[in-house]
């Protein structure tokens, strides 16, 4: 039966997979708060720019764009969170199926007379695990796509926050406040982007692990 597993190139379910996906989930949970903070800071930037009147028109435009970006980022992070929930469940399910499969395999290895009874069952289990592995592959790719999209939003956000910092200089007496808001925004987006890059690396490592 091992040869069938190898022939089908089925990844073996390991607790390490579950650890990897749990780490990814933790990263995302950690960054959800920051993504919300980016959204809030963008709103604060808009309010601050309104108080500064005509002098801060340029900053206001940048802040408005930032707010749209921040809403998209929060949405993307919520999407990532949902995908990770599904991944954790399915990786755990695969671990469960792998364990059951291992029990029957042990029986078969202990007593060759059982091969006739157990072979069809083990083959079916391997087929189910193969389908699950395929589904998990799709989920991982989807997760990577959403992370890539979120990273693009972060890049856009960083450009916008740089523009906001430039425009803040023309904000008259509110300039120091506007600069501070823009700097805070940049910091928060950089932190989200760093986590997302780490997440993509982790996903790539997990995919490589699943292939071995």
């Amino acid at each position: 039966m091992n040869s069938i597993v190898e022939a089908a190139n089925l990844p073996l379910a390991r607790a390490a997979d579950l650890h990897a996906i749990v780490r990814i989930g933790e990263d995302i949970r950690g960054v959800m708060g920051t993504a919300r903070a980016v959204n809030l800071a963008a709103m604060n930037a808009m309010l601050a720019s309104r108080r500064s009147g005509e002098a801060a028109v340029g900053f206001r435009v940048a802040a408005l764009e930032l707010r749209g970006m921040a809403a998209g980022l929060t949405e993307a992070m919520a999407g990532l969170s949902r995908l990770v929930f599904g991944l954790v469940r399915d990786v755990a399910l695969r671990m469960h199926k792998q364990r059951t499969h291992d029990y029957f395999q042990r029986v078969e290895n202990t007593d060759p007379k059982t091969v006739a009874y157990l072979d069809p069952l083990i083959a079916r289990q391997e087929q189910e695990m193969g389908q699950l592995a395929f589904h998990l592959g799709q989920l991982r790719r989807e997760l990577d796509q959403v992370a890539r999209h979120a990273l693009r939003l972060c890049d856009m956000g960083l450009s916008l926050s740089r523009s906001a910092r430039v425009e803040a200089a023309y904000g008259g007496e509110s300039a120091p406040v506007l600069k501070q808001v823009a700097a805070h925004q940049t910091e928060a987006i950089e932190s989200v982007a760093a986590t997302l890059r780490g997440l993509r690396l982790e996903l790539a490592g997990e995919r490589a692990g699943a292939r071995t």
Partner: protein
Amino acid sequence: MKRLETLYSEGRHQWLVIARDPDRPNVLIDTNEYLVVHGNEALLTDPGGLEIFPVVFAALAAGFDPRQVRWLFASHQDPDVISSLSLWLEFNPALRCYASQIWDSFLPHFGGDEHTFIGLPDAGAKIPLGGIELEAVPAHYLHSSGNLHLYDAKAKILFSGDVGAALLPVEESALFVTDFDRHIRHADGFHRRFMGSREAVLNWCERAAAMPIDLLCPQHGAIYQGADVMRFINWFSELEVGSGLRATRPELKQAA
């Protein structure tokens, strides 16, 4: 899917519950898993059966880092309580499991080795968690012969295993008891059949009545809070249990 919800939170101390799975197959009884957290350590009560491991684990990981779970507490030896043990150990081989010492050589049938289990004595014991102590409270013969509940004096919460359990219809699956009289109808048959001895019932009721309890958290069904906790203890103390015996011996039925 099951969901993780917070029952109590004060500083570094928390109780969370993983409950309600509308998608579960009807053949499986729904279960509540409670997570007690203090600082960086967590203990999971009655982690559930092998079949529900994926949904319990996913619900836990959606709101909490499962690597912080260091202890399992099995109120007794039933499959819906602890048959997922092997999968939890696969995730974290260093996990340790508290259970009555009478199950020391039975529970390894679900997984684990001599390092996994911490056998609790009949009289109960203190259980350390991140610098505080929880208390394993005896509840033998309710319904298992080696049965322990878990009391948290700080949060005033008693995890009561099968005591207080109710088999709720889908349309009455709220997390908390809101109408005691309506709710208790779903607990009645279960307690009459699964609880074996009046002596054991009275022993438990006396012990529970002496503890300050804000939340009584069973493994199945809804959670009792506030005045409903004492209502439940009073109800239970007067219940005729051991209905299985009466069914096989008509003279006992007549005498009752």
